[in-house]
């Protein structure tokens, strides 16, 4: 069977509509690939091959009978295991939720189902989305298709690796402090963290709810824009969801950046940035200048404090969001619970949660506790205001801001896992955008010794159109997206 999996989502939708290919062919091709490489990549926690084929056949039936097909008809989609899928196990890659089967679909899942997309499985992640490498997963790490001994990034590492390995065309991720942008950067794919409030969080298992968004991950900018158009939009079930008229983000994809003024904050090129990353990203910036977008260095001084600010807020919210996991209504429960409820809860949580999750819950509890609330949590919220103001000021001058997505290229599995702080440092370029609620996209901008490097484009709130246009133009004028990882 020809490699249907090498098509793009755009091509599949067109192909099925024009009766050139069938959904069943596409889905079968994807599962062939999954069976080929999954043992090495380990991108998935749960696969739903039978259901996927059944859905594919239903779509082909629909097509045969001339019915209108959805905008993602036949496109295989992988779902990060932090998003609730009714009837399909949703684990957050944690022992705590190993057998949890949600009784409802997240709003974004309802949306893609309505558009006839085909869910192929749930992808691996850092436990409860806490991490940058997918190494804290209870089910073992995912391996980067570009170098199987290295991390794929995190926390949406499974989704990033699955796309890069050809195991899916589109994938859902979630981004709290860089969890979409990091893996797409490390796996040389495209991913968007939308403006806060653009995509419904109903059904997103919460880690830090004032910071996170569900976002699209794909092989290229067009597919990503198509995916975003479908999942964005007001949801009455999410009180933080914004009422906006629906937009077709693919309509903004023009090959032109003339007139866009781009800022390059120097804080994104701090001391921890590796030479290779610095070199490659500046090369990309010069390319954009060549294409007609003046780029100018600038400074957002409060970004220096973004990392501790982010972690204090995220851990504090996490300590409360994860309080519900006590083994009573769902989740891990010790078998012999003939002790009082407080002891049983504490034991369930000790066994159900991995070390990093427990660390963050305890630290978050500390940051909110009496006597420390003002020093940590409240102070962090004030610095958050300063960071927002810095971005607002920058966007008075610039249409978009650019920098590296990650300070260093993908590192080896096991290299940093013993040192929590070392891992936290990797988020330095991605967290500011979550603190300010801004949209950002990460696209491939080069390689160093075969390892992918990503570039991040940031825009003002709800100006995904600007960043998409810049990203699309860059992609069209370079050939990074055509490079394939050295897998079978």
């Amino acid at each position, binding site marked *: 069977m020809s490699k249907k999996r090498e098509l793009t989502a755009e091509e599949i939708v067109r192909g099925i509509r024009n009766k050139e290919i069938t959904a069943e062919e596409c889905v079968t091709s994807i599962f062939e690939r999954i069976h080929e490489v999954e043992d090495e990549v380990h991108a998935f926690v749960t696969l739903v091959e039978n259901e996927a084929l059944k859905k594919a056949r239903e779509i082909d039936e629909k097509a045969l009978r001339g019915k209108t097909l959805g905008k993602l008809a036949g496109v295989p989609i992988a779902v990060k295991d932090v998003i*609730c899928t009714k009837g399909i196990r949703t684990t957050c890659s944690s022992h705590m939720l190993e057998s949890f089967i949600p*009784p409802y679909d997240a709003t974004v899942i309802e949306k893609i189902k309505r558009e006839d997309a085909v869910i192929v499985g749930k992808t691996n992640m850092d436990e409860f989305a806490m991490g940058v490498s997918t190494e804290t997963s209870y089910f073992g790490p995912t391996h980067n298709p570009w170098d199987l001994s290295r991390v794929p990034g995190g926390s949406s590492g499974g989704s990033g690796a699955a796309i890069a390995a050809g195991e899916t065309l589109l994938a859902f991720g979630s981004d709290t402090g860089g969890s979409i942008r990091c893996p797409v950067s490390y796996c040389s794919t495209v991913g968007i963290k939308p403006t806060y409030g653009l995509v419904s969080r*109903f059904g997103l298992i*919460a880690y830090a709810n004032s910071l996170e968004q569900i976002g699209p991950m794909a092989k290229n900018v067009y597919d990503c824009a198509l995916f975003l158009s479908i999942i964005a939009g007001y949801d009455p079930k999410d*009180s933080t969801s914004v009422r906006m008229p629906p937009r077709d983000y693919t309509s903004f994809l023009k090959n032109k950046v003339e007139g866009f003024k781009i800022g390059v904050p120097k804080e994104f090129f701090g001391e921890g940035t590796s030479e290779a990353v610095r070199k490659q990203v500046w090369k990309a910036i010069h390319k954009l200048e060549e294409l007609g977008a003046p780029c100018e260095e600038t400074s957002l001084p409060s970004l220096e404090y973004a990392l501790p600010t982010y972690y204090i807020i995220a851990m504090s919210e996490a300590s*409360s969001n994860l309080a519900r996991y006590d083994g*009573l209504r769902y989740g891990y429960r010790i078998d012999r619970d003939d002790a009082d*409820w407080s002891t049983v809860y504490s034991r369930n949580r000790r066994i159900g949660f991995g070390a990093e999750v427990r660390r963050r819950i305890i630290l978050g509890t500390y940051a909110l506790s009496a006597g420390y609330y003002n020093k940590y949590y409240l102070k962090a919220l004030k610095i958050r205001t300063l960071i927002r103001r810095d971005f607002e000021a920058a966007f008075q001058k610039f249409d978009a801001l650019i920098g590296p997505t990650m300070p260093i290229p993908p590192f080896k599995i096991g290299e940093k896992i013993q040192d929590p702080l070392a891992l936290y440092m990797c988020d330095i370029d991605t967290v500011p955008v979550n603190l300010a609620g801004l949209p950002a996209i990460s696209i491939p901008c080069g390689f160093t010794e075969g390892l992918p490097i990503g570039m991040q484009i940031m825009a003002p709130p709800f100006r995904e159109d600007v960043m998409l246009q810049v990203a699309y133009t860059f992609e069209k004028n370079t050939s990074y997206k055509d490079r394939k990882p050295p897998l079978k």
Partner: protein
Amino acid sequence: MAMPKVKIGLEIHCQLTSLKTKLFCGCSSEYRGKDPNSLVCPVCLGVPGALPVLNRAAVECAVMAALALNGKISDRMFFFRKNYYYPDMPKNFQISQYDRAGGVPLAVDGHLYMEVDGKRKKIRISRVHLEEDPGRLIHLGPIDQSPYTLVDYNRAGIALLEIVTEPDLDSPKEARILLQRLRSILEHLEVFDGSLEGAMRCDANISLAGGTRVEVKNISSFKEVERALTFEVIRQKDLLEKGLAVERETRHWDEVRRITITLRTKEEEHDYRYFPEPDLVPIVITKDFIEEVKERMPELPEARIRRFMATYDLPRYDSRVLVGDKALADFFERCVNLYNKPKEISNWMMSDLLRYLYESDLELSESKITPEHLVEMIKLIDEGVISGKIAKRILPEIILTGRRPWQIVEQEGLMRITSREVLEKTADKVFTENPKAVEDALVNEKAIHFLVGQIMKETKGKADPELANQVVRERLQSIKRKGSLR
């Protein structure tokens, strides 16, 4: 044994029972009598990924209540998370409101007036806010002996109004009066129905002079509040008299054993780690909104009392008693609409009706009597068909069974005897059987009552008292005239 100086403050939780749904989700709020866990959804069950959305009507009800309690309404209020673990908490945090750390509750600095022993007393209300109810726990036996706990989340997420008073209450009795007053106000606003089980619960903070503040939790009604607090006062008084210290702690009121107990759980640690709820946005309450709510506000108790006094010419005391229980006041007005005799209706309600309800431990709504019944009964008296005495006799049956007064009277032949013939015959019997009394009656006015009473007894209360009286007097006159006993 002098009663020590007592200070009590209450933290009262009232369900907004007029709402059809819960505070943050669309599950029905009518959980009483339903199967456990049958009225839950991902939101109120705390399923991962679910998000709260605020019930608009809850804000309207809450603002109305805060206005009735003379509170200062915040123009911008937030929801906060109150973080603590307990099996009745689906998320192990409660979405509530807070008044520190940047938090702004619905209203602060209110007050209400109540009457204690004829004197008017002002009770200050420090804050009013909205929060969600936890689920219900069921134990096997007393809470500290149950081997496990059963949990039902039907109640989880129900909208609660939390009303916190300053420690202005000086006795358990005052606490009960406050709760009754609060109930009356909230019922008149039509946001609350106090007859529903568990609709009003409270915690109390109680301290005696020389002791420390003890929190008593799990008080489920106003009947219980006086009992629980009286127990606590005595318990603390005993300790102080023995020279022992009163421990500053949280105690649990056990309704069944009628004692407060220490639960010895470590939840006394009150570090709730409040922070603003990220999943909900602030609520801006405009002056226009408050005006709208004011316009729609139903008549408050104070106003209703004044109206009863003016319109129905009732004394203040009667008006207060009736309006003190909205159900009674409503019943009264419906009666008056059917039969314009307010004083008579009020008398019957305040004496016999209320007494019987109290003795049978029934709420008016639990009884079967309707305004139509009471009015019919009073008309029967006014038309001379039955006597007042007979009415008193049949009233309990009407209350318990809802049978129509006329039905009872007819079936049991209770009609007033107005036939002179019958009464003459009865008087024959009575006079024959009571010669001594007759002799007395000839000289002593008071003894006439005895003879009349005997006729009433003979006729089982059905004799028309006036006619009986007349018959007796005429007979006595005739004896006097004839100068001999028949």
